[in-house]
């Protein structure tokens, strides 16, 4: 039983990390965008494995169904077909990889040096009821703030797009 869960974890981890490498290092912007699809789906699977069922579904709905489509729209709007290469200077890329390795090494050092609590054997319940209660009681203020933020973003995106149209005339 336990080894099955471990196997699923490794499958989802590979499904998350390998496409993420393609996202970062691919020369074709469309390949990057489509690899992001697999990374986000892998993270959704990890959420489900961690018992966060509502969050996994939200990830699929909002990230894979919404944000990724927006990013693909952006790629299609702003790149010409012969121009899909996202080039980077090799020297800059080496420096960036060095920075990434340093960040990763220090994070792993922190994770290894702290003695984390043992995993409690927790039974997994459906979480949506409890999350709904929390959102309307303990986290009411952040919930309202983020609602206002979404409204502002909606208006802001329209304004940014509209001004551009008026300037073209």
């Amino acid at each position, binding site marked *: 039983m336990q080894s099955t869960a*471990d196997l699923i*974890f490794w499958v989802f*981890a590979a499904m998350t*990390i390998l496409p*993420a*490498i393609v*996202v*970062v290092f691919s020369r074709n*912007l469309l390949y990057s*965008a489509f690899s*992001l699809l697999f*990374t*986000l789906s892998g*993270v959704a699977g*990890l*959420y489900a494995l*961690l*018992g*966060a069922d*509502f*969050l996994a579904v939200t990830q699929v709905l*909002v990230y894979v169904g919404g*944000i990724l489509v927006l*990013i693909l*729209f*952006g790629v299609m*709007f*702003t790149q010409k077909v012969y121009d899909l290469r*996202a080039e*980077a200077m090799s020297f*800059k*890329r080496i*420096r*960036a*990889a060095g*920075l*990434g*390795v340093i960040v*990763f090494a220090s*994070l*792993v050092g922190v*994770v290894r040096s702290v003695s*984390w*609590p043992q*995993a409690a054997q*927790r039974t997994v319940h459906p979480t949506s009821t409890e*999350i709904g209660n*929390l*959102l309307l009681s303990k*986290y009411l203020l*952040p919930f309202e703030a*983020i609602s206002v*933020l*979404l409204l502002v973003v909606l208006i*802001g*995106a329209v304004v*940014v797009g509209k001004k*551009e149209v008026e*300037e*073209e005339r």
Partner: protein
Amino acid sequence: MVGLQHYLILSALLASLGIIAMVSRRNAISILMGVELILNAASLNFVAFSRFGPGGSSTPLLGGQVFGIFIIVLAAAEAAIALAIIIAIYHSRSSINADEMDSLKR
């Protein structure tokens, strides 16, 4: 036995890849993808801590999952605004390379 450390190292790897994408890419949309990777890594950390963190076995710690939802909403807002700005810049300059957006320096 997969524990908290596995998830933490996985999300550290994801965040490092996102940092590499943000630093090395010239295309603004690639930089946006790097930001998405980092946000996913942070959210994965929150959820892993809510699963493995201290707390009784009967009362699950759902604060981490609530923060994961907030992060997803923030990512959606950020992607919408960033793409609106990117498309506006593309209309006026017909290029979205980040190192060519230097009109404030002139």
